[in-house]
């Protein structure tokens, strides 16, 4: 076999080589995105912790009602949406399009409810005088960090809702596959996971006593 043949065969071999993790490329890409996004949120939360530890007058504005109660409802809604997403992924793998659509639209509805509750929380704080760089209680950076972290999470929820709607339509029409639904599910569960860290760090460490 000549060098050229070796090169050609070697190249062809590389083209047909399977995934190193025995998962589709789409899913691996989503996992890599999730890891990079996790580190982004990690950096934001560490930055938040840095500023909080370095401030002697960090505000603790969150009363049980409405803030903490609102957050508890938001947590239940988001975790429940993960459950409906699991149902959607399972139904999609079984090829049950109507049931997949029902589960996906349930997830979308729960995502919209979560976003609505989140915006209500924001409006409550804004009414109390919290702005990006000022608030009535103490360190002016409170608003910047609070709105940055919860805003980035809200952006993830909102974009997730839009993406699920697109996936749902594509899957119903047959242009998208169960693999797309599964990758979307990974993203949605990650949004749920991030919220599990945002709640204790941003809200529960700053409750009003």
């Amino acid at each position, binding site marked *: 076999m000549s060098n050229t043949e070796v090169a050609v065969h070697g190249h062809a071999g590389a083209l047909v080589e399977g995934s*190193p*993790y*025995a*998962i589709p490329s789409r899913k*691996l890409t989503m*996992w890599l995105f999730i*890891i990079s996004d*996790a*580190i982004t949120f*990690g*950096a934001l939360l*560490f930055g938040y*912790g*840095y*500023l909080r*530890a*370095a*401030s*002697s007058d960090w505000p603790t504005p969150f009363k*049980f009602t409405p803030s*903490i109660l609102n957050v*508890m409802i938001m*947590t*239940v809604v988001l*975790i*429940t949406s*993960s*459950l409906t997403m*699991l*149902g959607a992924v*399972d*139904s999609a793998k*079984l*090829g*049950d399009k109507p*049931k997949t659509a029902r*589960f996906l639209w349930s997830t979308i509805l729960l995502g919209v409810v979560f976003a609505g509750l989140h915006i209500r929380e924001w409006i409550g704080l804004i009414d109390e005088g919290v702005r990006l760089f000022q608030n009535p209680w103490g360190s002016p950076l409170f608003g910047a960090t609070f709105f940055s972290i919860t805003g980035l999470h809200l952006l993830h929820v909102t974009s997730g809702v839009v993406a699920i709607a697109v996936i749902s339509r594509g899957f119903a029409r047959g242009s998208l596959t169960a693999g797309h639904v599964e990758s979307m*599910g*990974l993203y949605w*569960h*990650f949004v*749920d*996971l991030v919220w*599990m*860290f945002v*709640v*204790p*760090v941003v809200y*529960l*460490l700053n*409750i009003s006593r």
Partner: protein
Amino acid sequence: MAASGASKNVIAKYLPVYFVLLGIAALEVFLAYQHFSTGSLLAILLGLAVCGGALAVMYFMHLAQESRGLFLTLIPATIFVLLMMNMIWSDSFRLLHMRPFAR
């Protein structure tokens, strides 16, 4: 009908994880109203959040069912990067107490 039944099964299969996650969230709120120091409360709440996060990653995101290689590629690297971010704390406490750098 078989598909419908299977979807119900998958919901039922993950209900225990769902309720544990809700329980962790409720426990966090309960503990937040107990009289712990801020440092202790942070450690407890983060510990519970890590438990909840691990359950979500392993069961909701099915990482437990993927190859061990995927787990070993993704998780230790992520934990390593997040741990390396902890180097900022000494500086933030220095700022709080307005202590100069080492003399």
